[in-house]
């Protein structure tokens, strides 16, 4: 369960309350640490990560209200859920707690069943928030993620330098027709898992999955030291993984899989597109089109990985490639220099 083994801080100046709350929390399978006033609690919270705080209000040396005020202004701590446990009477206190960001208010003596339900709910909410945060961070730079968390999101984007990769499975239709749908889905899942691993291990971001193909970006939104080199390394890794997969498939008497990869480097326009309700982080521009065209050209060229001139010159000879000369690609007014990675001769 999500809330198993969470780390809780029990803050109460009254020893009986403190011990009892810590006991209840421990019996629920969590770890409990205790603080006898707000000042000590803040020190502990700043020192190490807690998943949730059970907070008393009336305490000497910084009360619960002051603790919540401090938490709200602390970037690292403002998302830690707080459940107030107090026996102060009157709605005004409860209102103030909620206004200061408390998740909940429980009257003392606290009913253990109610406490358990509230802790579970708060931890679950925190888990979802953390998940959301992680998701945003995966599809955006930490700067963008921080911006999103603080200022919300806005459609639009900016021009950035990046390397774009397109990849798909060759002759996928033939494979689909030769096997059942379950087997096809399983094959796709295996394929996606392998490709994702190669791409993310090189700090790339897969931002589109279309049937048997995918698009990945290197250098935006996640910053990458050398996007062209990272993309090329990912592509080589993908080829290696396909070879391993094919060895397995051959042992099972299944046909080999081949992929084509196109890589291009240059300016892209990156940002959020869509509507206010549903948006995606994406990149558009000539570089994106070029990468897609290069991927499509792998079949004609009979080579596994094709890269454009900008990517090739950024490699500085660190990865060997063969010049295929200027090629007239579909949708391009002028012929472009195309290079094939020497290590991936098979299409």
């Amino acid at each position, binding site marked *: 369960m999500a809330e198993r083994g969470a780390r809780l801080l029990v803050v109460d100046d*009254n020893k*009986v*309350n403190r*011990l009892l709350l810590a006991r*209840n929390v421990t019996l629920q399978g969590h770890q409990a640490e205790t603080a006898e006033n707000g000042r000590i609690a803040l020190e502990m919270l700043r020192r190490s990560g807690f998943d949730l705080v059970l907070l008393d209000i*009336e305490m000497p040396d910084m009360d619960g209200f002051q603790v919540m005020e401090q938490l709200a202004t602390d970037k690292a701590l403002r998302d830690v859920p707080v459940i107030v446990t107090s026996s*102060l009477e009157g709605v005004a206190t409860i209102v103030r707690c909620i206004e200061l960001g408390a998740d909940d208010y429980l009257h003392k*003596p606290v009913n253990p069943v109610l406490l358990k339900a509230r802790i579970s709910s708060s931890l679950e909410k925190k888990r979802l928030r953390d998940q959301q945060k992680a998701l945003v961070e995966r599809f955006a730079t930490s700067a963008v993620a921080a911006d999103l968390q603080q200022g919300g999101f806005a459609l639009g984007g900016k021009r950035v330098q990046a390397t774009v990769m397109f990849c798909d499975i060759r002759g996928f239709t033939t494979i689909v027709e030769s096997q059942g749908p379950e087997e096809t889905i399983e094959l796709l899942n295996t394929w996606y898992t392998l490709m994702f691993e190669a791409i993310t291990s090189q700090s790339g971001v897969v931002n589109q999955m279309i049937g048997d193909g995918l698009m990945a970006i290197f250098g935006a939104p996640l910053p990458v030291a050398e996007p062209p080199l990272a993309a090329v390394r990912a592509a080589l890794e993908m080829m290696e993984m396909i070879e391993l997969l094919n060895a397995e498939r051959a042992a099972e008497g299944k046909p080999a899989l081949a992929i084509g990869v196109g890589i291009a480097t240059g300016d892209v326009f990156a940002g959020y597109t869509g509507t206010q309700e549903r948006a995606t982080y994406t990149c558009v521009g000539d570089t994106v089109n070029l990468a897609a065209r290069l991927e499509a050209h792998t079949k004609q060229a009979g080579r596994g990985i094709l890269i454009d001139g900008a990517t090739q010159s950024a490699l500085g000879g660190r990865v060997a490639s063969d010049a295929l000369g200027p090629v007239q690609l579909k949708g391009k007014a002028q012929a472009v220099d195309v290079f094939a990675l020497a290590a991936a001769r098979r299409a």
Partner: protein
Amino acid sequence: MPEAIDRTVFSELQQTAGADFVVELLDTFAEEAPHMFAELRAAHEAGSAERFRRAAHSLKTNANTFGAAALGHMARELELSGLPADASGVDALQMLFDTTMPALQELARG
């Protein structure tokens, strides 16, 4: 005035926190309560309504934890009625505590 000890509350506490733990917790209350009474008297002498209210509040909360209903009720009256003219209320609370605590301990050790 409610009954001295609400047995339902007490046995629920034993069930949820464990009977052995309740014995320890009562010992803690027995150790802490004299400080709370001392604070109550000091606050009264110093004329500090806020300190007086807080000390009464602590006693109320702990009494209610163990189901010591009468004690909790009396402490609550002190908490909510402001600084009293004399210490008779504190004396009465002390007397009630002195009889309630042994009863709680007997229950706890069952």
